């Protein structure tokens, strides 16, 4: 029920006295009204701004937060007020809703912030008053479109290839996003070039060339160099056909592809050539054939794959279909009216060009669009008057729908600009996100070491905990518990990929004593991070303190050699390197190095096994033994 209705309830109940003389039965007992009649003032503190209102005001809408008993959860006994840690500016609007019964949408606020506030206070957005509803809906739709586009842009364009894609899928991706591989880019530019060549050839064909020897009249170039043009045309059509067939083959849904606009344009572009091949050189048919050649100009529309501006224009026209329809309709009406008037005005004059009403259509169109060719002019005074009215109204009628179309185009164009900018900034954003993630992982790893250190040496642990908030402590403890549960360890991306290299390397070059489950390992490890590994390896060589290149098992030895000095140094230098990513893809691999929580030998030096794979394990055990208490990760030498 609406706001004020609650206040009129006593009145309605009083008015019921008027029914009593007519009542045949006794009235039921009225409900007992427990609430005190005297109204009280409530204090609502929203982030420091104190609002005061009557209790009755808030009780008007019992299905919202403030009107129900839910607000008791926010009651602060010490200060005798309701405290909400929300935006006081927004709360003003919410409270006004209770007071006036109408919810207004403040135009300068972000639509999402407003929605969130409404959701918090339990108010349904549908009750926004009519004065603000349109604005609210427009903004909301705009926002949703923008978000949908953003997610689309995030997913679509530069997403890395899914690991197991068939050639067909890869081909389709190459066609849709030419930037993914060099081959696709080359193909893209080649087709673009041939489209241009084809269009220019079509145009130049008709230019008159100097006549060949013996003739006087100018010939169009197309007939003079017929063979050359034919060859060029053939080449272009071959390329286009090839492209079309490839696209058809690669398309995930062939029916959908065949119905799409671009494929229709492709077909229309190449069809005339084939029809021309098939058709005989017949006089009757060649007229139709000539018409078909006109369709070759549609090849220029193939450029819309290459040019985004064209696509935007096409999309704008499609979205403004109703405005265009209105423009067309109103113009048609005006044309008919004025043509009729002009015809009858000029009917009497001798030699008038206004021979019929359809003939006057031409005059009206030319006049309304202010072209004024001058091939038809009115001679009578009445005709001139109506002609001038016609041209004035033409300007008006055309000027009306044009701004709508323009604003639509502007909106779509800006949206596209934004999408492009977002895509361009994508890499930067992804890098930033990766850094942030690495930061948290590093923090966690640091925490583990600090804890281990702290377990042994309580003095230094105090130093390490200084920069952590209570939340971080709890968070890291939680992650640690998860590690214990699953018996795997966290590490960051780089170490993971490196480990894949070293793992694959180690297993390939290791001899007998390596893992029984090794047979699948090399393939798996290359499989788990193939491309990234190669790339990362190249990148990381420069950065890593201890360089691990492919196939250099010897360096592991040197690693080992450096590994012996005291714990802090080794740990810091090897930290980036040797924190194992134990969930590196496949089970076999990880099973090999997974911890079996039996404590290793106490002194690091004694327990060095000879084999290369185990060297790595030994090093690990080395550091681990110093870093962890028994019961922690242990490398089993298999």
């Amino acid at each position, binding site marked *: *029920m*609406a*706001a*004020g*209705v609650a*206040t*009129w*309830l*006593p*009145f*309605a*109940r*009083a*008015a*019921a*006295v*008027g*029914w*009593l*003389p*007519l*009542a*045949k*039965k*006794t*009235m*039921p*007992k*009225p409900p007992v009204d427990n609430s005190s*009649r*005297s*109204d009280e003032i409530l204090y609502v503190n929203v982030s420091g701004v104190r609002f005061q209102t*009557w209790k*009755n005001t808030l009780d008007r809408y019992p299905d919202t937060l403030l009107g129900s008993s839910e607000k008791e959860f926010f009651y602060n006994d010490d200060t005798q007020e309701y405290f909400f840690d929300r935006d006081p500016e927004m709360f003003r609007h919410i409270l006004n809703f209770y*007071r*006036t019964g109408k919810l207004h949408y403040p135009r300068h606020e972000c639509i999402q912030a407003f929605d969130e506030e409404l959701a918090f206070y339990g108010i349904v957005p549908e009750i926004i008053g009519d004065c603000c509803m349109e604005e609210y809906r427009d903004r909301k739709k705009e926002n949703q479109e923008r978000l949908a586009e953003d997610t689309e842009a995030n997913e679509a364009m530069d997403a890395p290839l899914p690991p197991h894609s068939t050639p067909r899928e890869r081909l389709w991706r190459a066609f849709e996003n030419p930037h993914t591989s060099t081959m696709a880019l080359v193909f893209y530019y080649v087709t673009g070039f041939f489209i241009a060549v084809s269009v220019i050839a079509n145009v130049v064909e008709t230019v008159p060339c100097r006549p060949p020897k013996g003739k006087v009249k100018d010939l169009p170039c197309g007939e003079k160099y017929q063979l050359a043009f034919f060859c060029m045309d053939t080449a272009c059509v071959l390329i286009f056909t090839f492209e079309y067939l490839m696209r058809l083959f690669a398309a995930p849904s062939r029916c959908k592809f065949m119905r799409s606009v671009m494929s229709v344009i492709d077909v229309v572009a190449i069809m005339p050539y084939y029809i021309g091949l098939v058709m005989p050189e017949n006089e009757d048919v060649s007229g139709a054939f000539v018409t078909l050649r006109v369709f070759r100009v549609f090849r220029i529309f193939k450029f819309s794959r290459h040019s985004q501006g064209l696509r935007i224009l096409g999309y704008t026209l499609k979205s403004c279909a109703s405005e265009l329809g209105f423009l067309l309709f109103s113009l048609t009406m005006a044309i008919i009216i004025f043509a009729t008037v002009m015809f009858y005005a000029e009917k009497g004059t001798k030699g008038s060009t206004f021979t019929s009403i359809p003939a006057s259509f031409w005059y009206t169109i030319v006049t309304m669009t202010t072209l004024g060719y001058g091939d038809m002019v009115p001679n009578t005074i009445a005709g001139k008057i109506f002609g001038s009215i016609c041209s004035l109204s033409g300007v008006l009628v055309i000027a009306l729908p044009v701004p709508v179309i323009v604003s639509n185009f502007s909106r779509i164009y800006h949206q596209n600009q934004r999408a492009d900018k977002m895509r361009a900034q994508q890499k930067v954003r992804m890098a930033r996100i990766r850094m942030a993630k690495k930061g948290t992982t590093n923090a966690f790893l640091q925490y583990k070491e600090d804890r281990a250190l702290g377990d042994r040496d309580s003095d230094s642990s105090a130093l390490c905990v200084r920069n952590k908030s209570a939340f971080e402590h709890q968070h890291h403890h939680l992650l640690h518990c998860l590690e214990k549960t699953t018996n795997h360890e966290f590490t960051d991306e780089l170490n993971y990929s490196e480990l894949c290299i070293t793992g694959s390397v180690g297993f390939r070059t290791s001899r007998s004593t390596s893992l029984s489950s090794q047979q699948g390992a090399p393939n798996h490890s290359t499989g788990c991070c193939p491309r990234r590994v190669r790339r990362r390896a190249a990148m990381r060589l420069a950065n890593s303190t201890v360089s691990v290149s492919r196939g250099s098992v010897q360096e592991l030895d040197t690693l080992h050699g450096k590994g012996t000095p005291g714990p802090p140094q080794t740990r810091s230098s090897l930290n980036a390197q040797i924190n194992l990513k134990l969930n590196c893809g496949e089970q076999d691999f990880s099973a090999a190095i997974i911890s079996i929580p039996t404590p290793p030998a106490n002194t690091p030096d004694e327990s060095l096994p000879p084999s290369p794979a185990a060297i790595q394990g030994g090093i690990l055990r080395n550091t681990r033994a110093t870093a962890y208490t028994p019961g922690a990760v242990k490398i089993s030498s298999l």
Partner: protein
Amino acid sequence: MAGCTTRCRQGVLKLIQSVQRLLSGSLAKDNTDDELEMTTVCHRPEALEQLESQTNFCKQELQILYRGFKNECPSGVVNEETFKHIYAQFFPHGGKFLHHHMCFSEQISHGFVSCVADASMYAHYLFNAFDTTNNGSIKFKDFVTGLSILLRGTLREKLEWTFHLYDINKDGYINREEMTEIVKAIYDMMGKYTHPALKGDVPQQHVDAFFQKMDKNKDGVVTLEEFVIACQEDEIMMRSMQLFENVM
């Protein structure tokens, strides 16, 4: 003939005026000016103490009532449309605009008239009963006076008020037509969906029963005295009246 010439002259004058306004480009403005004038009517009630002495409410109750009243009608007066709108919201089956949506599908089959339930007629009579000064609007004083009688008044006052409600043309007598109107208005508030279904002659029967009870001297009209006496004799009604004490 004379009327014709005056009307022609008036029409010509108006035409000249509108042409003038067209030329000076101020055609639209006058309409808005007129509209602005109409909405700036405002009315303030009498002082709180005065109202307190004139009615049976205490100060706090008057304050609460006025705050609600002012919130709904910032201009200080309720006109009939607003009144009907407010009253219609209490009766979901009443009110044309609400019911219109509900029985749209039935409109096609049954026709609009049969399914419209309407609190507006009864609201109209109520409005007239509250509007003691008969100027088409209820001010706060009228409102509070009426409420005071209905909620805190003596039995006699309540019965008098009810009599005035039923007496549509305020001539001091309730005749059959008036009673039928009232009863029909009340039944209209029920709407179409009742159990048992409303038949056409039920209001009439109700009116007959009423007159049977009230009209002592069988002269076809009910006077105030007859009404009061008959009601006081009616046990059911007295009991119901008790229940409606302290509704506020």
